[in-house]
């Protein structure tokens, strides 16, 4: 309770703390500067968070199911009774849906951007273009708001913070389309490659596949999130190195629960057993979730804002006469 904390602070005047200072001043008692952490936390909880996640991969890889599993709610309605005879769209569409979820007093507006039609045609040339255009449109929107004379107090953030790219579990290597997509987009958005439907591979096959994928990514010069160049300090670097070693995560998604050993777990039931989604021996879903949500959620937003957005802005402001004002009607069509 905040009030009790302040009262305690008053009584605890003997709490002597030394300081690291360059101004020749040493602290001789408790001031209360560290309460700024509490103040900040309360403010951020009050305003809530935005988070925008995009899923890319051809149909049938379990994208919607995975997102539902990640956020433990039906944020993607497609998987709940997806009509199997729904036509696959002829071009890549961008569909974004927003939900508000709350946990522990923290409210998050989660926007899921789906890309049906990606990689599904016979000729998939340039199917990454609509996606790239969408991402840049969001940066453009933000930039427009930012350069306004009268600005909103909180600029609505629709920029894509994270793009989950689903790799087909062929067991062999990356497809040409995968490499092309990731090469082109890794400089404008944080890409997290995932191996989908990992329950089709045994543990050894999975390891080998991961090694091969990682080597291919390295050889093509694809910097996926967390990018090596943005590591802040040694601590960050060692944490992120461990994560990079384990990527791409091989995941299984499910929104059905089964009884295993007396516990109800999320899983997929097969004739030979139940694949437990949150069991680290079965698949790496738990690792992905912890990485994505519990430790790097804020960092994803920061890298998007401080690096990708700034790159876009610098490029845009440097363009000579490249003014093609994006009319608002276009962007509204592509949302919802």
């Amino acid at each position, binding site marked *: 309770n905040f009030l009790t904390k302040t009262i305690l602070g008053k009584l605890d005047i003997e709490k002597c703390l030394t300081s690291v200072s360059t101004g020749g001043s040493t602290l001789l008692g408790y*001031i*209360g500067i560290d309460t700024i952490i509490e103040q900040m936390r*309360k403010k951020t909880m*009050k305003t809530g968070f935005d988070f925008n996640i995009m899923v890319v991969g051809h149909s049938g890889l379990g994208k919607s199911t995975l997102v539902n599993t990640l956020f*433990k709610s039906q944020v993607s309605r497609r998987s709940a009774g997806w009509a199997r005879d729904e036509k696959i769209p002829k071009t890549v569409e961008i569909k974004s849906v927003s939900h508000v*979820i709350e*946990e522990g007093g923290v409210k998050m507006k989660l926007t899921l951007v789906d890309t049906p039609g990606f990689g599904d045609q016979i000729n998939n040339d340039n199917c990454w273009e609509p996606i790239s255009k969408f991402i840049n449109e969001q940066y453009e929107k933000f930039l427009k708001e930012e350069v306004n004379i009268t600005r909103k107090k909180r600029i609505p953030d629709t920029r894509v913070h994270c793009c989950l790219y689903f790799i087909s579990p062929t067991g062999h290597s990356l497809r040409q389309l995968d490499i092309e997509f990731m090469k082109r987009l890794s400089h404008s958005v944080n890409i997290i490659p995932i191996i989908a439907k990992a329950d089709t591979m045994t543990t050894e096959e999975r390891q080998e596949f991961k090694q091969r994928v990682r080597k291919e990514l390295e050889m093509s010069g694809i910097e996926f999130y967390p990018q090596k160049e943005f590591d802040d300090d040694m601590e960050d670097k060692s944490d992120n190195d461990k994560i990079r070693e384990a990527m791409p995560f091989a995941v299984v998604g499910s929104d059905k629960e089964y009884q295993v050993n007396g516990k109800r777990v999320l899983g997929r039931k097969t004739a030979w057993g139940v694949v437990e989604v949150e069991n680290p021996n079965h698949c790496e879903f738990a690792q992905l979730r912890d990485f994505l949500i519990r*430790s790097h959620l804020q*960092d994803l937003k920061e890298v998007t804002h401080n690096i990708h957005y700034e790159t876009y802005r610098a490029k845009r402001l440097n363009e000579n006469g490249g003014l093609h004002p994006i009319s608002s009607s276009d962007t509204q069509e592509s949302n919802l």
Partner: protein
Amino acid sequence: MASTEIARQAGEGARAVPLAGHVGFDSMPDQLVNKSVNHGFCFNILCVGETGLGKSTLMDTLFNTKFEGEPTQHNQPGVTLKSNTYELQESNVRLKLTVVNTVGFGDQINKEDSYKSIVEFIDAQFEAYLQEELKIKRTLHSYHDTRIHACLYFIAPTGHSLKSLDLVTMKKLDSKVNIIPIIAKSDAISKSELAKFKIKITSELVSNGVQIYQFPTDDESVAEINSTMNSHLPFAVVGSTEEVKIGNKMVKARQYPWGTVQVENENHCDFVKLREMLIRVNMEDLREQTHTRHYELYRRCKLEEMGFKDTDPDSKPFSLQETYEAKRNEFMGELQKKEEEMRQMFVQRVKEKEAELKEAEKELHEKFDRLKKLHQDEKKKLEEKKKTLDDELNMFKQKKTAAELLQNQAQQAGGSTTLKRDKERKNNPWLCTE
């Protein structure tokens, strides 16, 4: 309020969805806070008040440190602002504290322009931030924010009312910075006088339309404490860094022959309240207000001044970019013109230099010719002389050979003549040869 935020967000096409289990994003505030802690915070306080009101002492007392500096003189010709930055750390929070003092405020005879340097200083900080924000390649997240977050206005404890200098200065500053008025050296006023003084000050501020900083009352947890504090404004404070033994504790106090004023005793002065409000409860809100209200106002005014306009509803959006482009083209045009001018000047200079060189060359040629002619003349003269000399020499030679010939002949003849003469002598002994 939290619910209105959510309603607004939900109204933008999002529906609330229940969670079926623990996802884990409630650690988001912690992630944000950790990042901020790693980054460090900065807080900038401006102290405005006449010399001798105890500004530096109060800062020392507030932050429990001995900041450097000696008391300033009273004979400054104008108001200058001196800022010092200190790095304080408490548990794992690092704070870059900047304290800006007004030196010489209220010391001049004519104080009409005193507020100007303060306003300029505050504007300069906003300007620096704006420049950084407008840059193409910018580093906002590692920018050291120097904008003033709180302005402590020190009121002299006359017990009567605000001075006109105070009113004018506060009126000029209220739209630029969060003003927190405080009554300095309040141990000079008795309790009853203090209450009357506070009421007088508040009513004067209200009647003159001065907007002082109100502690925020929209968050439930701090609304109560903030609203009570709001009613105690302006705070009457006493500062002291000396410690006096009261009972069995050492407390900060001022010792008089008739008693001791304890700084941290709420019955004696409002110092504790000030510290609570300024640091422990509202530091973050002060920073936010500075950024979202005062800075935005400054930015809007500045950009409108520079000629940028937001669009009217039916014209194309993003006209800021267009005016920006237009200005850029203008600038490039100017640069090109300048380049042309410089080129012209360069060509001109080259021509001049060339002409000069030609002149010099011509002169040299002439000189050479002259010298040559001189030489030739000399040579001719010499040759003539040589010729004459040769002629003379020849003549001389001729004469010489002629003379020699003559001499030879003469000798032969003389020889014979001598013989003859001898014969004659012999023959003619009476020929006296003397």
